């Protein structure tokens, strides 16, 4: 095994100047800006759902969509905070209230319209278009988040990846409810909870592998 003074020597030798990370709030803002740009582009190419103006005044819909948006913003800030070593892990609680409201809104919709758990509640044509939106929003946002959070890899990988993917999932769910007529209860449930569970499940299962693709290149290999 290499001795500690030798290690210090080799680290000092291999040291290169680095650019300091910007404050976490600024970085979260950049990521959210990217999300806004993607949503804007999608709105131009796919078009907003036709009945959005009629739906917005309805309290259930408005609460659901704003809660998912707030969850996304809160989770993004939490992810960037938690990725730094000296910030409190209490930041993890930031998206919790909005997440609670969002899930309750979905649950309330299910409860009040539980009767539409029937075949007509699922429309296949809409599913394909929903999937396109899901990929077009989720993929670039996930990749951007992953690259921006790579310095968290040796510290709190699980917490960071979970909040990061919650942010992606919430923004994607917001996009889905903006662009698609998901009035059938089962569809809302599948697309909102499904995306969240999918992103969080995938990241929970693969977080170490995912981070190993983007971990800092400057990490010297240990000789033992």
């Amino acid at each position, binding site marked *: 095994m290499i001795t500690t003074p030798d290690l*210090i020597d080799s680290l*000092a030798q291999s*040291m290169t100047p680095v650019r*300091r990370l910007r404050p976490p709030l600024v970085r979260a803002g950049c990521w959210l800006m990217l999300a806004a740009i993607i949503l804007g582009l999608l709105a131009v190419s796919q078009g907003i759902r036709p009945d959005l103006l009629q739906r917005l005044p309805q309290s259930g819909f408005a609460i659901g969509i704003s809660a998912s948006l707030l969850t996304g913003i809160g989770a993004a800030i939490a992810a960037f905070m938690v990725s730094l070593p000296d910030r409190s892990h209490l930041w993890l609680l930031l998206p919790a209230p909005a997440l609670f409201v969002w899930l309750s809104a979905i649950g309330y919709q299910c409860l009040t319209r539980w009767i539409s758990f029937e075949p007509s509640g699922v429309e296949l044509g809409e599913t394909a278009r929903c999937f396109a939106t899901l990929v077009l929003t989720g993929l670039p946002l996930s990749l951007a988040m992953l690259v921006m959070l790579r*310095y968290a890899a*040796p510290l709190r990988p699980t917490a960071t990846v979970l909040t990061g993917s919650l942010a992606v999932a919430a923004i994607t769910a917001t996009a889905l409810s903006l662009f698609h007529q998901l009035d059938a209860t089962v569809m809302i449930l599948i697309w909102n909870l499904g995306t969240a569970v999918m992103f969080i499940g995938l990241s929970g299962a693969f977080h170490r592998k995912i981070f190993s693709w983007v971990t800092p290149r400057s990490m010297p290999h240990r000789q033992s």
Partner: protein
Amino acid sequence: MPSGRHSRLPPLTLIKDDHQGGAGQAHSVRELDWSILMARAQDGDRAAYRRLLEGITPFLRSLAARRHRDLSDAEDAVQDVLLTLHAIRHTYDPARPFGPWLVAIANHRLIDLLRRQGRLRSRETALMPEHETFSADQANLYERVLDRRNLQEAVEKLPAGQRQAIRLLKLEEKSLKEAAAISGMSIASLKVATHRALKRLRKTLAKGGAPR
């Protein structure tokens, strides 16, 4: 802490009469020192970086010693922390104190190492004398003795002609001619007897042990 750092402190410690306050101030000065060194290292100053790493190593050792009893484990942990610090040195913001940043990294890595060791220990079994085995003949004496006795018993149970054929040809390794001369049997009948005896021995030994 290296003694060299103390020598730069006296102007500050002399002002304070209270020993406790002096120590606190020394502590914060040391941290400020590290913070400046780290900021210069981020800009590419290798000498500052080396001084910083050498300065924090004793502090890291004391942190590691609290969690690891084994000295080599503790040293391993210190190196792990140094490597991590090197990999994520971008994340230090010179506007914030250096101490909490360093301690947070150290704690994460120390706990990770403990977890890793815990996992390893739960899967590994210590090598005990009874797990050992050798390829040398002497090591497997017991089984060989057992086999030999089984074979002898099986040979004893053979009919007289077959027994004699086996003993002369196989155990004493005589030629067919010598065996024929000793036993008074023809070569052909010796061959037949050996063949039958071997068949019978194979059968009894395969059943496990001598015939009762």
